[in-house]
């Protein structure tokens, strides 16, 4: 059991700045995120896209913003639990006990949910009958590529994951690549390589096709793919891989007894506490009248939520407001040498 003052769910920009705000008021925190890297949507959805509305930063990318935020909280030596999803929370006396899908447990006096629109999960095939094969012959990520050796693998998608795996697996497997249009959005070098392998007969490529149906008993035997014009083609394959990127799912958050408004958690605007005492929500996931889904709004929300956590962490102390420019205590916490 890891004991801390506050558990932050979500390592996006808003969660990261909240680490800073907790840190300067002397509270410890741990951060959990379902992605395997820090940065949330900034890093997963738009690492290279410029952002123009961070105050005092005329232009930066999602990646640049994330790196600066990580730099800003370095002094607090915060632990990040990545590639882990919070599954359950429960209140035991005055503490919140939180458990992740990997079995990590936390005890904290408060929780700050900075989870954006939820956790990132792979997008799945829309086809109905796939469920019983998912995780076996229908996969959305690859953990052990050796299982595909000497097998037929049918890969769906047009981005870098689809292209990279098609190229990689073509060394040891029969690879069939299927994409819904003629253009691939992956890197040009990968597209060229796939075309070259296609010429050499090492990869079969079908474009303007999508998965139509799956047949089999215990295992997949055949699939059919459907062309834009309605033509159906049958393919014999051992494995089906889908690389359609990630989608955000609210997931277990919906089961924690929090009030929900569509996919957001209503909060008060004094300290961004939810209907549950000691649970706060900030950033895209919270809602209140006038809410703007901007990173800068999330920073403000995090600053106030951090102060809201203080009374739960230190019930016998009075929180005193201090500026980073003048407070020696705050500067010590930030590791500033004078």
């Amino acid at each position, binding site marked *: 059991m890891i004991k801390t003052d506050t558990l932050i769910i979500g390592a996006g920009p808003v969660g990261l700045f909240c680490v800073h705000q907790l840190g300067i008021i002397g509270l410890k925190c741990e951060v959990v995120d379902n992605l395997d890297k820090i940065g949330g*949507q900034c890093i997963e*959805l*738009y690492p290279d*896209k410029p952002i123009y509305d961070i105050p005092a930063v005329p232009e930066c990318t999602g990646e640049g913003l994330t790196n600066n935020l990580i730099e800003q909280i370095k002094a607090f030596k915060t632990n990040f639990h990545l590639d882990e999803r919070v599954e359950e929370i429960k209140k035991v006396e005055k503490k919140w006990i939180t458990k992740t899908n990997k079995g990590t447990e936390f005890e904290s006096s408060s929780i700050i949910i900075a989870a954006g*629109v939820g956790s990132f999960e792979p*997008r799945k095939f*829309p086809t109905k009958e796939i469920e019983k094969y998912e995780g076996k012959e229908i996969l959305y990520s690859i953990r052990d590529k050796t299982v595909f050796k000497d097998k037929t693998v049918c890969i769906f*998608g*047009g*981005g870098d994951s689809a292209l990279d795996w098609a190229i990689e697996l073509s060394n040891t497997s029969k690879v069939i690549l299927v*994409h*819904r*249009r003629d*253009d691939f*959005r992956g890197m040009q070098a990968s597209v060229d390589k796939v075309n070259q392998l296609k010429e050499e007969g090492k990869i079969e490529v079908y474009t303007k096709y*999508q998965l139509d149906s799956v047949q089999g008993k215990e295992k997949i035997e055949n699939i059919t793919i459907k062309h*834009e014009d309605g033509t159906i083609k049958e393919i014999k394959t051992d494995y089906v891989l889908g690389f*359609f*990127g990630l*989608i*955000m799912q609210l997931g277990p958050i919906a089961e924690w007894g929090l009030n929900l408004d569509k*996919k957001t958690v209503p909060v008060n605007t004094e300290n961004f506490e939810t209907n549950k005492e000691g649970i706060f929500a900030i950033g*895209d996931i919270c809602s209140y009248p006038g809410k703007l*889904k901007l990173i800068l709004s999330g920073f403000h929300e995090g600053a106030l939520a951090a102060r809201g956590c203080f009374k739960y962490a230190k019930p016998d102390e009075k929180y005193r407001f201090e500026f980073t420019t003048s407070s020696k205590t705050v500067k010590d916490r930030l590791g500033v040498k004078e």
Partner: protein
Amino acid sequence: MPKITYIENSGNSHLIEVANGLSVMEGAVQNNIPGIDADCGGAMACATCHVYVKEEWFDKVPKKEEGEEDMLDMAYEPNKFSRLSCQMIVTDELDGLIVTMPEKQG
């Protein structure tokens, strides 16, 4: 104000007045039309505001710009009439537009 018809996958139809300058996505979200999630808020980063534009309207809406087709690769059951509703801005020319929502978003 231009009127837009949003048809849910179940067939439920909603005729909504949407102000010029808003996106087709915003018209749906602000009027609580089910079937358009718009998780990313209109940044062309999530493909959860995917709609099918009625065939006779498809060539009348402004063309896709760079990046939209890439995002549509990730949408749920895209077809040749697929668009991201956050990328279609309402103008008088779109008065009468009809869009249908997919079975689900992602």
